[in-house]
C-alpha cells in the first residue's frame, strides 16, 4: 500500500511547488489578525471585569473610568485593524449581513453594538447625561440596560475570533473546541492584567480589592495555562496529519523560539508572580509585572497559534 507522505514546505519559493503535494503554513492571517484578536480580547475583558467585580474606584479621566475607556479604545483599535486588513475595507458593513451562520458577521455586529452602547455608558462620566456611569449593581435602569448589552456583546467579542479559527476547516491545528475557550481565557487573563496595571497606576489598587482580584487573576492564569497544555495534547491526538505538522512547527520548528518564550514569560511567569504576590512578597509590583506579562502572553500565544496554522493537503 502506498500513501504519499507530503513534505513540509516553509514557503512555496518556486512556482512549481504549487503543483505538488506538500504541507504549507497558512499565509492569509498573520500579525494584524493577532493584534486584532488581542486588542478585542483585552478591551472586552477589562470592561467586563470592572463590572464583574463592581469596581467603582479605578481611576478616572475626564470623569470616565479608565477600564471603560481602555475597553472601548482597545475594541475600537481591534475593529480598525480588522477593517484595514480587509481586501475591500469600504465594504465593511457587508460583514453584518450573515449572522445566522458566520462568526465574523456575529462578531462584527457585537463589535459595533459594544462600541455604541459602551460609549454611551462611559460618556455619562464626562457629560451630564440622564444615566449613571456606575457599575451594574449601583447603576440606574438605563445604565443597567447599557451594561447588560455591553456584557453580552463583550462575551461574543471574546469568543468569536476563536470560533472563526475553529471553523477554518483547512487548518486542522485550529479545529479544536478548545480554541474558542482559549480565546475567552486569554481575553480574561489580559483583561485582568490591564485592570491591575491601570489600578496600580491610578493608585486605586487598595487592600480591599487586592486579594480578590489577585486570587481571581491567579485562577484565570492557571486555567489558561492548563487549557493551553490540553489544547496542544488535543492537537497531538488529532487524526488529521496537518494538525500534527502544525504542532511540530510550534514546538520544534521555526515558531518554537516564539512559542517557548511566550509559554515561559507569558503563561507560566504570570502564574508564579501572582502566586508570590498573594503570598505577600512585594505584592503590587509583582501583580503589575504578572499583569504586563499576561498581556504580552495573550498576544504572543494568539500570534504563534496563527503562525502554526498549516494547511492540509488535498488528499491527506
Amino acid at each position, binding site marked *: 500500500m502506498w500513501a504519499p507522505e507530503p513534505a513540509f514546505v516553509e514557503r512555496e519559493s518556486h512556482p512549481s511547488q*504549487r503543483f505538488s503535494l506538500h504541507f504549507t503554513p497558512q499565509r492569509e492571517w498573520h500579525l494584524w489578525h493577532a493584534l486584532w484578536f488581542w486588542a478585542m480580547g483585552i478591551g472586552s475583558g477589562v470592561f467586563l471585569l470592572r463590572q464583574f467585580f463592581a469596581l467603582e474606584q479605578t481611576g478616572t479621566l475626564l470623569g470616565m473610568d479608565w477600564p471603560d475607556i481602555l475597553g472601548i479604545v482597545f475594541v475600537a483599535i481591534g475593529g480598525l485593524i480588522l477593517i484595514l486588513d480587509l*481586501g475591500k475595507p469600504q465594504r465593511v458593513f*457587508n460583514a453584518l449581513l*450573515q449572522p445566522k451562520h458566520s*462568526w465574523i458577521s456575529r462578531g462584527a455586529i457585537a463589535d459595533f453594538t459594544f462600541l455604541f452602547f459602551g460609549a454611551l455608558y462611559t460618556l455619562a462620566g464626562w457629560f451630564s447625561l440622564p444615566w449613571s456611569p456606575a457599575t451594574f449593581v449601583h447603576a440606574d435602569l438605563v445604565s443597567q440596560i447599557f451594561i447588560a448589552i455591553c456584557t453580552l456583546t463583550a462575551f461574543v467579542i471574546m469568543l468569536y475570533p476563536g470560533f472563526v479559527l475553529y471553523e477554518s*476547516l483547512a487548518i486542522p491545528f485550529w479545529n479544536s473546541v478548545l480554541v474558542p475557550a482559549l480565546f475567552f481565557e486569554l481575553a480574561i487573563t489580559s483583561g485582568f492584567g490591564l485592570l491591575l496595571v491601570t489600578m496600580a497606576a491610578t493608585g486605586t489598587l487598595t487592600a480591599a480589592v487586592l486579594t480578590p482580584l489577585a486570587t481571581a487573576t491567579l485562577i484565570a492564569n492557571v486555567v489558561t495555562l492548563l487549557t493551553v497544555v490540553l489544547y496542544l495534547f488535543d492537537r497531538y491526538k488529532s487524526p488529521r496529519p496537518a494538525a500534527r505538522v502544525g504542532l511540530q512547527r510550534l514546538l520544534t520548528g521555526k515558531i518554537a523560539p516564539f512559542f517557548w518564550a511566550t509559554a515561559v514569560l507569558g503563561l507560566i511567569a504570570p502564574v508564579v508572580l501572582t502566586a508570590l504576590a498573594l503570598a505577600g512578597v512585594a505584592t503590587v509590583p509583582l501583580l503589575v509585572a504578572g499583569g504586563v506579562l499576561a498581556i504580552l502572553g495573550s498576544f504572543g500565544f494568539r500570534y504563534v497559534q496563527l503562525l502554526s496554522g498549516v494547511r492540509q493537503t488535498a488528499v491527506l
Partner: protein
Amino acid sequence: MAVAETEQKPIVISPKPDHIPHWGMVIDLNRCIGCETCAVGCKIKNNLADGVWWNRVLTIGGDGLDVADGSVEQPRAYALPLSCQHCENAPCLKVCPTGATYRTADGLVLIDYNKCIGCRACIQACPYGVRIFNEEQPKHEYTDFDLGAAEALPHEQGVVEKCTFCADRLEQGLDPFCVDVCPARARFFGDLNDPDSEVSQLIEERHAETLHPELGTKPSVYYIPPEKVRTHPTGLDRLQLNAADVVHE
C-alpha cells in the same frame, strides 16, 4: 485589468422548469496524463491574472511538479486535477460574513465579487485550497490584450476568486472549458441528479470517490482512482501503485 465594480453581476443559472440539475464532474485519474491543459485552458478562458490558477494539476508522488516517488525501476506518481469541488455542504459558504459566496439551485458555488470584502475566511475554510485572494491589482504582464471569453468574470483587487464550473458556458448549454480541452478525455461533466447521466453512471460503475469525504463537505467533483481497484473509502491516499499489480486492459 481594472474593472468598475458595477460591471460584474452575479451569475444565476436558471434551472429547467421540470428538473433541477446538480452539476458535477468526474475525473478519471487513469486517463489524466498531467499535461496541465485544463489548467492553462481555464487560465486563458477566464482571463486569469498572472499567478492565479483556478485549476491546478497536482503531482501526487514526489515533492515537486512531475516528480515521482519510489525507485527508478518502480516510480510512483499520478496527477490530480484540483479546482473548486462545488461542495453541497460548502464550508466556505458557511463562514462567508457577507453572503458573497452563494450556492445556485443547480449546485454551483459562486462568488459575487461586488459583495466580497476580502476577509479570506473562505480561503481558511476550504479544505481543498482552491480559493485565491487577489492581494494586488490583477496583472497580465505577458499579454497586452485581454484573453478569454467575453462572458468571463472581471477580476479585481481585494476579493477572493475560484473556479465557477464555467457558469457562463453552462448558461449557453456548453460544458466547462476544462472538460472540452482535456486531450485525454479524463473529465466528464453532467447532472448528478440524473441517474442515467454519464457522470452518475461513472460514479456508480467505477467507484468514484470524493476528496476528504470524512469532512462532510459532499463535493460535486468525483475522482476515479488510479488502477481498477476500489481504494480506501476515505480518500485517495491508500493507493496500491505497485507496477506488478497494474491491470492492463
